[in-house]
């Protein structure tokens, strides 16, 4: 068991196991994230970073173990009971996952519309406000197919923050973007985390992004937490697995299969 487990955290994964077929993806993972913290999960492709991230919102159900959100175990909640929990979250998906059949404005406002708690005008104002925060007010009428990769991510971000969430999850926020656009997204994430006072968890294998947005970096390796520490601690640690990943070397204990 890793020493990262505390039961007092705001988001807690406790002894979480997940297996797909014969492949063990998460092997008794313990991770605790405090309120207001910005945690980045790093690791090789296929190590279960996104799978762990999706567990926090119960988009994936653990085979065993507990997922605690503000002390509430959500591992076995029904869909209806999960709705209020999920409304506390916003998530930016790897490919942005914008709804193809809807314009940008409809994408951003869909969650608010379906929640049924706001008038049409209030939703419109909220959509404009969030699109302003990501600098895309002009794109409100555009369809997702008309947007560039970076713009799609920004619309995905606007959708994620539309419901004023307490927790933001980012799945590979800079993957597939050029370095400049990636930096724009990183700045946006840092800015949003500060402005909205959210707890955030990001998954990435982009170390530039990780160092820029993290208060704490957690490295997954072979289904377990290999290392957890501040960006400075990860730079100076002597764990060979961590150093190979951070420096991006082909030679080392991590073998590419």
């Amino acid at each position, binding site marked *: 068991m890793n020493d990262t487990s505390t039961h007092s955290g705001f988001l807690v994964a406790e002894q979480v196991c997940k297996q797909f077929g014969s492949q063990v993806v998460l092997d008794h993972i313990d991770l605790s994230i405090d309120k207001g913290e910005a945690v980045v999960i790093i690791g090789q492709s296929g190590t279960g970073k996104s799978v762990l991230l*999706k567990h926090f*919102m119960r*988009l994936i159900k653990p085979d065993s173990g507990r997922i605690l959100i503000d002390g509430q175990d959500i591992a076995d909640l029904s*869909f209806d009971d*999960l*709705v*209020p929990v*999920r*409304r506390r*979250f*916003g*998530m930016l*998906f*790897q*490919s942005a*996952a*914008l*709804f*193809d059949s809807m314009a940008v404005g409809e994408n951003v406002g*869909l*969650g608010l519309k*379906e*929640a*049924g708690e706001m008038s049409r005008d209030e939703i419109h104002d909220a959509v404009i406000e969030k699109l302003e925060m990501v600098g895309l007010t002009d794109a409100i009428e555009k369809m997702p197919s008309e947007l560039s990769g970076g713009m799609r991510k920004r619309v995905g971000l606007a*959708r994620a923050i539309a*419901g004023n969430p307490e927790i933001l999850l980012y799945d590979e926020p800079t993957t597939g973007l050029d370095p400049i656009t990636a930096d724009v997204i990183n700045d946006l994430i840092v800015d949003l985390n500060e402005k909205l006072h959210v707890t955030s968890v990001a998954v990435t294998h982009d170390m530039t992004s990780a160092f820029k947005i993290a208060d704490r970096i957690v490295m997954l390796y072979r289904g377990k937490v290999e290392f957890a520490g501040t960006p400075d601690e990860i730079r100076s640690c002597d764990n060979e697995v961590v150093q190979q990943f951070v420096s991006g070397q082909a030679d080392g204990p991590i073998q590419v299969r």
Partner: protein
Amino acid sequence: MVRPIRSLGRQGITLVNAFGGMAILLAQFVYSLRKIHRSLPLIIEQFYQLGVRSLPLILVISIFVGAVSAWQAAYQFKFIGAPLRFLGQAVGKATVIELAPVLSALVYAGRVGAGITAELGTMKVTEQIDALESLGISPVRYLVMPRIVACLIMVPLLVTFANFVAIMGGLVVSVMGVNVSSETFLFGFRDSFKLTDFLAGLTKAGVFGLLIGLVGCYEGFRTTGGAEGVGMSTTTSVVTSSVLILVFNFVFAMILFRL
């Protein structure tokens, strides 16, 4: 020797899994109906997408179904020496009981069932279904329920339309190709028409609609991989619903039309 048995066992498990998964989805669909009022705009949109937009295809196949059944019936009548004044009866019965519901459903499975699976499958592999859930929206209520309700209502309506068009197709061939007057053809049709046959055809159509919607959504939701996965799910969806339509049709024949 072991390998074929193992393969058979594996396929058996896959089949049981699929039927179990469809039964669960059906139960979730029924449960989601309690919030049908919140999905009315989505249902109306699907009426248009899955129903109205299928009209041209149903029109074309029904004309030819009616035409060929009149032609073939006339050919058989000639062969056994039966009088052609019974042509209206033969075409009418065959169309209302079997041809319109079954052929419309099969064509509908090819157009709409495939479309549902391809759309939901693409949404699944691009994480759009996860995104819906992350917004606290039930994918069953938002995506599955409107599509199954639309199939359930639109297939019987399309079959009613197909009945009418096929009879007209048969009438045209009878008058122009077989030399039976329209009065004789229509008298024969009216003489043999039974409301219970028509309602039995519509009941079958409703069940076929449910099957097409259910299988289409189920296969879409279990899509994995990229474009290849979507293609495979779409094929499986059409094949499964077509086989189920024919199997259920036989079961209906035994229940509704006892010898």
